[in-house]
């Protein structure tokens, strides 16, 4: 029978792991502070168009989002582009009340800084976007932001 040798110390020493929880906690706090929870579940597909001259959207708490794109569940809702406001489909006529509720949810001093971010799929036609923009104008939400992906150079051959 083979016997294990006792007494002889192996070359690898045990690493002291007592500070491991501290390190993990540090990482945890970092992520807890920086995390932004997903605001809604998308029910429309959105692949934003590309652009080079983009600006960062500052102060996310003052941004309200309007999503426009083809529904994800095509079998159920068809392929016609739809508007999504807060987790559900909406019509163009729902936008004024959406703008009002977004305004009321913000501090009074901040209301004039509210930006409406239009997250629109690149492949849809402008008609529905124009309608939404007209409604926004009527409701007094003038600051808008067309959501785009930043690319170093625009590929024009993909456009037509």
């Amino acid at each position, binding site marked *: 029978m083979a016997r294990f040798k006792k007494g002889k110390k192996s070359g690898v020493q045990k690493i002291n*792991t007592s500070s*491991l*929880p501290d390190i*993990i*906690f540090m*990482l*945890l706090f970092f*992520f*807890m502070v*920086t*995390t*932004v*929870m*997903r605001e809604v579940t998308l029910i429309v597909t959105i692949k*934003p*168009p*590309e*652009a*080079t*001259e*983009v*600006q*960062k*959207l500052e102060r*996310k708490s003052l*941004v309200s989002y309007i999503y426009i794109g083809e529904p994800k569940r095509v079998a159920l809702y068809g392929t016609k582009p739809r508007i999504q406001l807060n987790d559900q489909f909406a019509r163009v006529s729902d936008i004024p009340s959406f703008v009002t509720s977004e305004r009321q949810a913000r501090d009074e001093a901040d209301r004039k800084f509210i*930006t409406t*971010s239009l997250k*629109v*799929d*690149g*492949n*849809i*036609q*402008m*008609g529905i*976007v*124009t309608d939404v*923009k*007209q409604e*926004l*104008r*009527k409701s*007094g*939400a*003038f*600051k*808008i*932001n*067309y*959501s*785009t*992906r*930043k690319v170093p150079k*625009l590929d*024009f051959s993909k*456009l*037509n």
Partner: protein
Amino acid sequence: MARKEMQEINAGSMADIAFLLLIFFLVTTTMDVDTGISRKLPPPLRGDEEPPDINERYIFTVLVNSRDNLLIEGKPGDIRGLKDQAKEFMSNPTGRDDLPEMELKNIPGLGNVRVPKKSAVISLKNDRGTSYKMYIAVQNELAAAIDDLRNDLAMEKFGKKYTELISEDQMNAIQKAIPVPISEAEPEDVGEN
């Protein structure tokens, strides 16, 4: 009697709990920053207003039809040349008489700058059938033209690019010299299929 020595709590599983939380936040976190092209919509028309009388040479019209073709200043155009055309319109370097008349104007913080005599306007109009990505590409090219001009001016006056300027006053001065003159025409219901 209480025991003299406090019993030590086993902290060995603390790391596991922390790991669990850490993984949860790792998964739910979204690191992407929102980027986009910011624009300001005009207030709605009241219906009784006369359209402002602007001389033809101060307007640069860009039309995009439902087949994503461009009509720039009345001629069929291409998106590749749009930026240069827009730049030429806004700076009129050769003094053409169908482009805005330029004059030297004293802008606080910049000194004398060559700017259009009256405000020059880029008028953008699209059909309902225009694809969104084409519309954004046009907006992007026009924004690029403005950015280029601003960069040139900032380089000349401050030796830095516009985007690298730190002082708020300098940025405001540049913005005053070269505003974003994009105006969107009232939409007409044409061109959707």
